[in-house]
């Protein structure tokens, strides 16, 4: 399959508007403005596009909710917070192909009746900020953005908002709070952002990759798009592969490519010929899969059946030398650090889990600690305010389920066995 999302990124000037136009860029914008907003929306619905931020929510449905709400103004937020460990798939778009995102947002804004867009950018991506800002300036100059896009009387203004380093601000309602200038913490749902979002107005939050797919849908039509990859969640998908493989990196592959295929064919197989032990398939919040479970299609439908989730498509590969207790401990350090503190199960639970894991990893674990870990994770699971805490519990439960013996050995030996 020919790359669409990562098209042209090997060109050193790919972020420049001239290069982008050269390669056919912004034609889809002009095409979209030639049809009614409702028709654009229908194309997106027909495409079957599902959100690439992690939850896989049908984009057409989200947009329909937002356009059904009569309140104005509406806001379009691009979620570029990309904070999930193992995830770096939006980065090449932001840094190498910013005009694709801009074009996608301009088309989406048109379809949604939103005149203002914000890109909420991960605080640790300062270069991307500079690149996006100059790309936005270029697009403004060329009337692809602004008060009167392509002379058609359409308005869409775009700006970049730098995050300050909180993972939770990637959660859409925390993102909105943060953009409003408040502390980034998730809001109660319902009401959903599509009805009551930023400054109380209908707000559409979509991932970078989701929005970057929109020009492609316009280019080839929703129906054709729906034929790519998995039938229930079609389209091209970016996978960021990291860990013990020969060729870590971002791969654009059809949705539904198997984990096996990704690791062994695209990412060049295991590094130093080591044996595969485990894979975290969709970013740190998704449950781990043991080596024998990787013959599964990477999409939003098949992965839950395989015992995990597609998440952001961040594949973390671990070989036989990796200590799973240490991985769990490191993951919980992350969650404890990133817990926003709003709800008790996550705030206290991640702290407690981390403490127990720390002592096991340091050889101070005692009999009953594994049961305690399971209990604590069990209390958290399903009871936290937002998916962050759930994710933390899921990591622990998944690790114990598949690698219980490693925990037991740590406790028995009184030290890390790796």
């Amino acid at each position, binding site marked *: 399959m020919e790359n669409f999302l990562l098209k042209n990124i090997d060109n050193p000037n790919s972020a420049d508007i001239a290069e982008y136009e050269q390669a056919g860029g912004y034609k889809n914008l002009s095409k979209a403005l030639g049809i009614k907003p409702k028709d654009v929306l229908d194309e997106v619905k027909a495409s079957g596009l599902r959100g690439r931020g992690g939850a896989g929510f049908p984009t057409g449905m989200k947009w329909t909710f937002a356009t059904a709400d009569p309140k104005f103004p509406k806001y379009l937020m691009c979620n570029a917070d990309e904070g999930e460990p193992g995830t770096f798939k939006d980065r090449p778009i932001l840094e190498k192909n910013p005009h694709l995102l801009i074009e996608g947002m301009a088309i989406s804004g048109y379809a949604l009746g939103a005149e203002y867009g914000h890109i909420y950018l991960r605080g640790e991506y300062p270069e991307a900020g500079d690149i996006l800002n100059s790309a936005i300036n270029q697009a403004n100059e060329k009337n692809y953005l602004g008060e009167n896009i392509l002379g058609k009387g359409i308005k869409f203004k775009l700006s970049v908002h730098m995050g300050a380093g909180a993972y939770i601000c990637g959660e859409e309602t925390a993102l909105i709070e943060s953009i409003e200038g408040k502390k980034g913490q998730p809001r109660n749902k319902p009401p959903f952002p599509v009805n009551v979002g930023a400054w109380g107005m209908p707000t559409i939050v979509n991932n970078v990759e989701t929005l970057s797919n929109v020009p492609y849908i316009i280019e080839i039509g929703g129906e054709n798009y729906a034929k790519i990859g998995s039938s229930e969640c079609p389209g091209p998908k970016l996978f960021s592969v990291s860990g013990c493989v020969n060729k870590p990196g971002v791969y654009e592959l059809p949705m539904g490519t198997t984990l096996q295929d990704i690791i062994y064919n695209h990412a060049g197989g295991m590094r130093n010929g080591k044996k595969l032990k485990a894979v975290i398939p969709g970013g740190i919040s998704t449950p781990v899969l043991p080596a024998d479970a990787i013959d599964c299609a990477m999409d939003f439908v098949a992965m839950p059946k395989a015992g995990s989730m597609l998440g952001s498509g961040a594949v973390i590969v671990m070989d036989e030398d990796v200590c799973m207790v240490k991985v769990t401990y490191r993951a919980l350090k992350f969650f404890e650090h990133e817990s926003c*503190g*709003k709800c*008790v199960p996550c705030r206290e639970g991640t702290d*407690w889990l981390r403490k127990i894991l720390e002592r096991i990893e340091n050889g101070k674990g005692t009999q009953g600690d594994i049961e305690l870990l399971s209990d604590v994770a069990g209390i958290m699971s399903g*009871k936290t305010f937002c998916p962050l805490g759930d994710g933390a519990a899921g990591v622990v439960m998944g690790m114990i389920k598949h690698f219980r013996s490693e925990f037991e050995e740590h406790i028995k030996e009184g030290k890390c066995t790796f």
Partner: protein
Amino acid sequence: MITLTINNKEISLEQPMTVLEASRQAGIKIPTLCYFEALKPYGGCRLCVVEVERMPRLQTACTLMVADGMVIQTESDTISEVRRGILEFLLINHPLDCPYCDKAGECELQDLVNKYGPAVGRHKEEKRKVPESHKDQILARNMERCVACTRCVRMCSDVQGASAISMMGRGNDTRMEPFSADSFNCEYCGNCLTVCPVGAILSRLYLHSFRPWQVDREVDTVCSYCGVGCSLTVQVRDDSIKRVIPKEGKGLNKGLLCSRGRFGYEYIGSDDRLTTPLVRKNGKLEPATWTEALEIVADKLQGIRKESGGVSIAGIASPRCSNEDNYLFQKFMRMTCGTNNIDSISRTGYGAAQKYFEDLLGQGITSNLIDGLKNSEAIVVLGGDPTSINPILGLSIREAARRGAQIAVIGNAKGLERFKTLQITAPVFEEAAVLESLLAQVFASKGERGEHAFLDRGIADMAAGTSTVSDVKGLDDLKKILLESPSTSIVFGTDLVQRSDGHRSLFAVSGLTYLLEARLYLLSEKANEQGVIDAGCVPDMLPGGRPLHIEDFKKKFEMLWKDSLPDFKGKTLMEIIEGARTGDIKALYIMGENPVFNLPDAKYVKEALDSLDFLVVQDIFLSETAELADVVLPALGWAERTGTVTNLERRIQVQKKAVETSAGMEDWRIISEISGKMGYKMEYKDSEDIMDELAQVSPLYRDLTYKEIDRGKSIWPYHGEPLRGAEISEIPAGEEVQSGNGADYYLAVDRPLFHSGTLSRRSPALTKIMPEPVLRISAASAEKLGLTDGDRVNVTTSAGSSETVVVVDDSITDNRVYMGNNFKDRGACRLLNFRLDSVTKAPGIEGCGVTIEKR
């Protein structure tokens, strides 16, 4: 109609609400921690989880809205397990220092763990350690105990509107902290204290001094400070007040209090209290027995009445005293001393305005419910800052602002800085002109209302004679807002009464109220300013606002009081002072007032009082005025006696006795004793007895009893007969006086949030919050004068000079500088001259041009 099932019980609801609210209505208890009724749901603690059929996970009852056909279980094994688990979580970092924590016994966490929690915890590691912070003088913070429910923060920002505190840090490091870091730079309402479920925020007024279960007595009463009249509960041990708390949902304040109400109670136990009568002997005040003191007073007053007649005797009543005290005081003055020379400090503001408004617009025109303010679409605020004069009323304005109302401030109001939508600068001495111009513009658009011909005519005449003040910014916008608003309220502070042309402002506000059919609220600094008037402590009106000059009323009272009433026109407050100076007044009886400190031009007032033959002062402290007296009689204070007060809505409430003291006697009892000795018998068992008589004689208070008052039912117009319609049919014409004198800066009397008159200077907590007088000054003025925050300056007027500290205040938009009248020898009133308003007889402030020099 929504029908749902909770615990197999079918429930029908008229209105959408949360599952928690629906359960509570149905008498089903669900444990909660982060939920607080007055606050928006948060959903943080997860204790309120319930099972809902067809929903995949447990749901939090406090955030879930009911839906038709929902089937809910609030108790199950799974739910109990979750609650137990969450409570175990809450304790892993909790210090569990209950034996040492003030909150033990009324701690929600303790109670929850007791009921739903595990018996032992499994956490082995070190707990989070955060030292208790005592950097603030009033509030201690113990963040080890904080459960991060954010109730305090939601209270502070969403209800109080102070936005002074926040949850700092993230995850397990989350803690409440003031933005000002160490100490609280806030409004000190202490409402965060009320809502904190654990011992994380503590009052240093009683830290470690008692346990909640160790109080001897709890008395539900009413605040002693301002004219709002908040309900509060006094907790007493060993006959001293241990603390003052609001009761959730009780009273018009609905569980909220301000700094004065909550922390200002300590003056009652002050060491400076008068404990025995004092009699001047050889020029010095010496302790005396009650019998001796009362006899001297009776003899002296009797003698002066005989010699010079009742006209030479005068009385000053008090808006700090109860209705019963004031009723008896004026009866004593009129019947026992034979004089109509009776007035109160209310004349300088509230009383003057009240009378003017009622004369023009009818009795009860200012008797509007505070709670209704929040529903206004437009609120005009003028003549003072409601959030400091009447803080709880101020909260209703903030609430209206949050609901999207237009808030227009004419002049300065610091507490509305973040809530106002429009501010209009009215230059000193030109306030009346600005208001007249506004009225003229509104009249030009709306025309006559046709209800009161004389008013329509008066407005038309005024409009014809007014050249619009065109250079006042925002006046057009305000006019537009007012014409468009379907419900307008005017909140009137009394600063504008204190002008020698104050009646012009009063007329303009009356006209606006009339044309816009607005609700009028009159700010009231002291607890019983309305009551002192309704009890008859004004020269020309009998209890219930009955004009003395109307023969029918006079006859009726003479029959009830069994003697004839004095027949001459009585003097108003400043006329009484002037009378004392000229010798027309020979004896003056002052109950609970401090004219030397509270009236303008202290030197003049002092000279006047010095010229008296006989001065009696009845008070709880040896005030600046009491120091001049011939006899000083110690009275009982708030919480030491029972009596009713009438708030600015004209709601009558009972201030109840909570502590026993031998310090003095009730004001009414002192008066009745003296009266008896002078031959006019006053025999009452208690204050309730007096209220029974008052209910009989005052047409307003028909059938009013303590019982009914206690039920919270005594709201205007009670069961009585207000004087319907306007009292007069002609606009009183006053002299036009031009008082501007082209000064660079003008001194205005500040009414700070943390003080009230001179009572608060004896409340250590309030003096800790605000230890000395400050001069609030605009940023522009400060820059011109080269001053910054904290500079010590001398403030000098033609009447004198005072030393104070500069506070630069961005909310001030003009050349006024504000200084309060609270601290001994450093009050603002002393620095002011005055000239009487010819209509209202209120002292208009003059000579307030000041120079400010850095020390």
